[in-house]
């Protein structure tokens, strides 16, 4: 269990930290927002109609994009943050939270997204990175951020920079779950190792791990104490079927992002509901089977096995 209590963001804007009666943008509020999404599904959408279908299907939030990850692969070129009009249209037409992606390190796109009223910003490797040496310093924002990671070092470095939520990178737009599985397994193994040394109170070893992972000693200790990432961690990248979602939940993810998997299938309506069901009831095979029956495998997106022109997961450090 994660204790959010009593951790205040010391980097609050002056006018807010001077007002002792009311605070916005604290760690508690930013991480707390992610906690409310747990056991849920966040769906990529490119228009209002898709967003309404997602809401109707029981999604906990939507992610607004101009192009789905698979379309980014097909079109090539530079992928940037979504247009303001589509973001505002979605914000104004559904009641569940709305997220949008900015390019890695692109502070200006993030500021624009914060200003547009989105509830969370995804600093995403699906878009073309804007900065190859630095991610955004996310503590400066009132709006919480989610970031991708393929291993524990990346996850802890993003949390160090102020990410309020993490997700596996997986390999977006491929319809192939294998990379997301690889990433969560790698994280789980490294967390188990840290927990082992934490329980022994072997501080030298924990310090050595923090140097190896290029992150702070405190964050490594916190991870060892909790036995999990200190923030909510979702699965993302390649989830296509209800069974995929259930698998990621079984591997310890707190919830699931579905990108191209829904709206690039030929049965998006049924599939959206089915994936929501399988995510929540991943512990009951009868329900996963029922969810899997709601979809037609012939209508799943074809996907890409290997021979990728672009490995999105290698973006960001």
């Amino acid at each position, binding site marked *: 269990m*994660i204790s959010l209590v009593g951790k205040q963001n010391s980097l609050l804007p002056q006018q807010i930290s001077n007002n002792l009666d009311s605070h*916005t943008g604290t760690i508690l509020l930013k991480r*707390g927002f992610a906690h*409310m999404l*747990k056991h*849920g599904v966040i769906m990529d959408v490119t228009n209002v109609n898709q967003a309404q279908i997602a809401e109707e299907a*029981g999604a906990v939030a939507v992610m607004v994009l101009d192009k789905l990850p698979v379309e980014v692969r097909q079109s090539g070129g530079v992928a940037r943050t979504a247009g303001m009009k589509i973001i505002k249209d979605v914000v104004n*037409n559904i009641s569940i939270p709305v997220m949008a992606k900015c390019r890695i390190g692109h502070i200006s796109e993030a500021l624009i997204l914060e200003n547009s009223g989105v509830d969370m910003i995804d600093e995403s490797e699906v878009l073309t990175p804007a900065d190859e040496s630095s991610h955004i310093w996310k503590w400066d924002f009132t709006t919480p951020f989610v970031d991708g990671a393929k291993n524990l070092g990346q996850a802890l470095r993003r949390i160090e920079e102020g990410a309020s939520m993490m997700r596996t990178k997986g390999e977006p737009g491929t319809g192939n779950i294998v990379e997301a599985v690889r990433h969560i397994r790698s994280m789980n193994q490294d967390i188990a190792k840290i927990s082992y040394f934490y329980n022994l109170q072997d501080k030298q070893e924990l310090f050595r791990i923090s140097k190896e992972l290029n992150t702070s000693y405190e964050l490594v200790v916190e991870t060892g104490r909790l036995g999990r990432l200190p923030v909510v961690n979702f699965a993302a990248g390649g989830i296509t079927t209800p069974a995929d979602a259930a698998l990621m939940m079984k591997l310890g993810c707190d919830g699931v992002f579905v990108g191209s998997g829904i709206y690039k299938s030929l049965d998006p309506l049924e599939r959206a509901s089915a994936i929501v069901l399988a995510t*929540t009831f991943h512990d009951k095979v009868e329900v996963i089977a029922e969810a899997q029956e709601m979809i037609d495998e012939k209508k799943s997106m074809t996907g890409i096995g290997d021979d990728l022109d672009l490995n999105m997961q290698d973006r960001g450090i």
Partner: protein
Amino acid sequence: MMKKVNIGILGVQGDIEEHIVSVESAFRETAMDGIVSIVKYPEQIDSINGLIIPGGESTSIGKLSNTPNFHNNIKKKITQGMPVLGTCAGLIFLSNQIVQSPSNISQKLLGALEIETERNAFGRQHDSFQSEFPIPKFGLDKFMGVFIRAPRIRSIGSNVEILAKLNDTIIAVKQGNIIATCFHPELSNTVIFHKYLIELVRETL
């Protein structure tokens, strides 16, 4: 022998684990030997004698618990007097009337609590806030409430007691065995609401 207090957390979506930890601390602080369990399937409702509906997305919680027996069983137990605590999405789910903004999705509600609730009434995540207010019923001058895309209570029925207000806005109420808050007591540094729920459950045993 008195029956054990068994608090169930409606476990389909939201911050379920935070409520489990809060109930466990409340048991510890009151030196009580109680049980806390997740209620995810209809048959699990029979063994509990108190229920918490957590924070999360009320549309998702309503949809995921909408199997033929689930809503009916929960509502029946509440009508029969089982104490229940609903926080944020939980309050919305308990309401008998809601005002949607901006979407016009028709939501599944339990409707056990006579209040009219406005969803996302304080704004979007950017506007989420922590604020202090008194709770006279608990003898508290200051309680730190955590409001995340929080709803507000626009009006209440004649049997509804106001537990807390923020300026002029009603943010926590009690109607017989039902307690509901617009904020997240499971994210605060005191478990006073969880202790109060346990107290109500003990009175029914």
